[in-house]
């Protein structure tokens, strides 16, 4: 392992993380809801009365945020290396996997670990490990 100092952004990433934590805390304190993106989006695909508006509003906020950001500062780079077919396969796996496993980086990672849920700890280890292995296989084994 060598550290990629050129791309390492500890302060911006820490600050962004604090904002994500603050947003998750606000949603829990004000709305009584867990800020798990896959759960919030997944719930829109199983719409229940009185449970749609807050989900749509939260998703709209996440989608619009970069537009507001761009008015105040330059957006950080966004580089997608994956090919179109890979993106389709990856998207399907992320969609099915997050719903089957009841959460993603935000629901299990941020919120679940914040409330010290053993289930979320197991899920977080599982998806992070699978991510490490997948990148290893693609970049260093078959790549």
């Amino acid at each position, binding site marked *: 392992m*060598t*550290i*990629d100092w050129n*791309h*390492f*952004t500890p302060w911006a990433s820490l600050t962004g*993380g*604090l*904002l994500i*934590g*603050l*947003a*998750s*805390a*606000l*949603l*829990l*304190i*004000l709305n*009584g809801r867990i800020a798990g*993106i896959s759960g919030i*989006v*997944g719930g829109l695909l199983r719409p229940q009365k009185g449970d749609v508006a807050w989900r*749509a*509003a939260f998703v*709209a*906020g*996440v989608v*619009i*945020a970069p537009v507001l*950001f761009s008015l105040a500062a330059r*957006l950080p780079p966004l*580089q*997608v290396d994956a090919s179109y077919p890979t*993106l389709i*396969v*990856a*998207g399907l*796996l*992320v*969609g*099915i*996997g997050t*719903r*089957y496993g*009841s959460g993603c*980086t935000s629901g299990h*990672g941020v919120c679940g*670990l*914040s*409330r010290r849920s053993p*289930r979320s700890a*197991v*899920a977080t280890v*599982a998806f992070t*490990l*699978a991510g490490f292995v*997948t*990148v290893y296989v693609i970049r*260093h084994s078959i790549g």
Partner: protein
Amino acid sequence: MKSASALLAGLLFGLGLTYSGMTNPSKVLGFLDLTGQWDPSLAFVMGGALLVGAIAFPFALQRSKSVLGNTISLATSTKIDRRLVIGGLTFGVGWGLAGFCPGPVLASFAFGGAKPALFGTAMLIGMAVFEVLERVKENTISKSGMDSHY
């Protein structure tokens, strides 16, 4: 009011994702590439989020209702089962293939062009497939006379 606060939380969440670098799949893959040129930034994103969460969540969970009067809605399952692990692993493979997870891809729609849109569409289809499979399973269970709640 509940939608307004959810919108505010979503905006903050999206700003955090954008500023942190999480919306850049190339950077995410740099974090997942442990044995190559490793970019530890994402550990700082998680660290920052947990710093706030670990203080705020226990405090919030002491209340019986949220500030706006909702019941506090938490996952009730404590089972560490095959669904959880297989689901997590499946998600992780997809995450490692593209460098997108659900939050960042939403925050990439506005400026990312065709690729986040394609990934996002596939992700929604994956979620819809899950819903269909769950409904089939629920119907099968209730038809066989068992309790459909699990």
